[in-house]
């Protein structure tokens, strides 16, 4: 599989064409939750890139062993159906470990990302990246690249949206549309704008 991987698709494609929030509609909860201010969006975006990259790496590593048939007491078993359960376990544990290590080794990075890390342990965008990697049967390198660039795509969408919402705060909005209503409408229009990238890879 490694040989004929379309690297354009898993880098530029993951950021723009198959953007996690705006095309696949995953991770919409943090997208709406932490996009009120630009600086929190930046912290969250950084944390997502970080977690998605390491989660993709770890899950693709484990998945290689999971797909092979194992022989147990004379029965041939295929444990691929355990994919989601195992991914949840691994990602959650991994983020915990990274959080603890980060706190010790790099306090400034922990201070910047720390409060966002527990938020995304079981985020569906992170889960989705691991799941898509497994579905496409990507190797470790391709999977990690895809995870990193999907995270960058998420961060990009989050930053654009946070900028828009900061402007929305100061504009006069008709009463029925105030708050979450206008935020969702804006997100929809933003998703339509990203539709323009479809087909480039």
């Amino acid at each position: 599989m490694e040989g004929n991987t379309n690297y354009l698709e898993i880098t530029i494609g993951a950021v723009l064409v198959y953007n996690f929030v705006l095309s696949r509609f995953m991770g919409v909860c943090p997208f709406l939750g932490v996009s009120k201010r630009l600086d929190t969006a930046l912290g969250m975006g950084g944390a997502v890139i970080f977690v998605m990259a390491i989660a993709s790496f770890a899950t693709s590593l484990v998945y290689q062993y999971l797909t092979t048939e194992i022989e147990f007491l004379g029965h041939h078993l295929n444990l691929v159906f355990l994919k989601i359960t195992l991914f949840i376990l691994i990602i959650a544990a991994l983020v915990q470990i990274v959080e603890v290590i980060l706190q010790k080794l790099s306090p400034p990075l922990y201070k910047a990302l720390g409060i966002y890390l527990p938020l995304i342990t079981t985020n569906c965008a992170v889960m989705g990246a691991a799941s898509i990697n497994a579905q496409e049967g990507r190797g470790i390198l391709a999977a990690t690249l895809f995870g990193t660039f999907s995270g960058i795509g998420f961060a990009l969408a989050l930053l654009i949206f946070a900028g828009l919402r900061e402007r929305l705060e100061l504009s006069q909005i008709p009463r029925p549309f105030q708050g979450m209503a206008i935020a969702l409408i804006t997100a929809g229009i933003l998703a339509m704008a990203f539709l323009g990238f479809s087909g480039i890879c």
Partner: protein
Amino acid sequence: MGTTILVAILFTGVIALLLGIIIGVVSKLFSVPSDPRVELVLGLLPGANCGGCGKAGCADFAKAVVAGECPPNKCPVSSSEQVSSIARALGIEAGSEFRQKAVVLCGGDVNQMKMLTLYNGVSDCVSASMIGGGPKSCAYGCLGMGSCARSCPFGAIEMINNLAVVHAELCVGCGACVKTCPRNLIKLVPADSEVHIYCSSPVKAPLKRQVCNVPCIGCRKCMKSGEEGQFEVDGFKIKVAYDHQPLPGAEVVDAASCPTGCLLTEKQHLAIERAEKPVVEEEVAS
């Protein structure tokens, strides 16, 4: 089929156990020694993260208190019991206490003040003060768009008839609103003061009268009614001398019978604003 279930359970169980052990070992290896006293102080603090102490949130303040950089009474939100419990827990002096509250020194609501323009811009005091000064004609009065009310972490400021009114029982004196007001109308005053002159305009009395029904015209009736030193002249208006003890009480307000009605106790001020009907319902800022 049975073996598959068994193996799946075993497999997941073993992996979960392994991950659990790894997390346990890692958190032991990479544990950061933190001062248990910081946690203790943080537990005793209100946790509002208002920044009234000058630190970035309660956790930062707790660190400063434990390090001895800051006395525990610097927290404007904690009651004296909370402060003394922190001091007891650490075995240090609580520091002398001086409680304050905020007051908006303007009485110009929509009924009392002439309107200058129809303001259609951004509903925010800072923006309005940059563009021509908002809808009201007094260039020194409350803009009535509630920037202070939005900045208050305790919800102590209510916008009534397009005028900001501080509820003294909710205000802790953190000073967040003082920095917000573009017209510098909000002052921190001693918490036990109850009489204020609700006007901050420094212009001459006839000019004030043209735009507002309740300005301070500097007639000094209050100075004659109160004790010596309770009020002082400040340009073309009078102000309460908050440093002077005793502070004027409700009896001074009755004795002075302020001709414009800007000398009021907090209760009277609130009662007046509550009783008045807003001119247009739309204009009551949320």
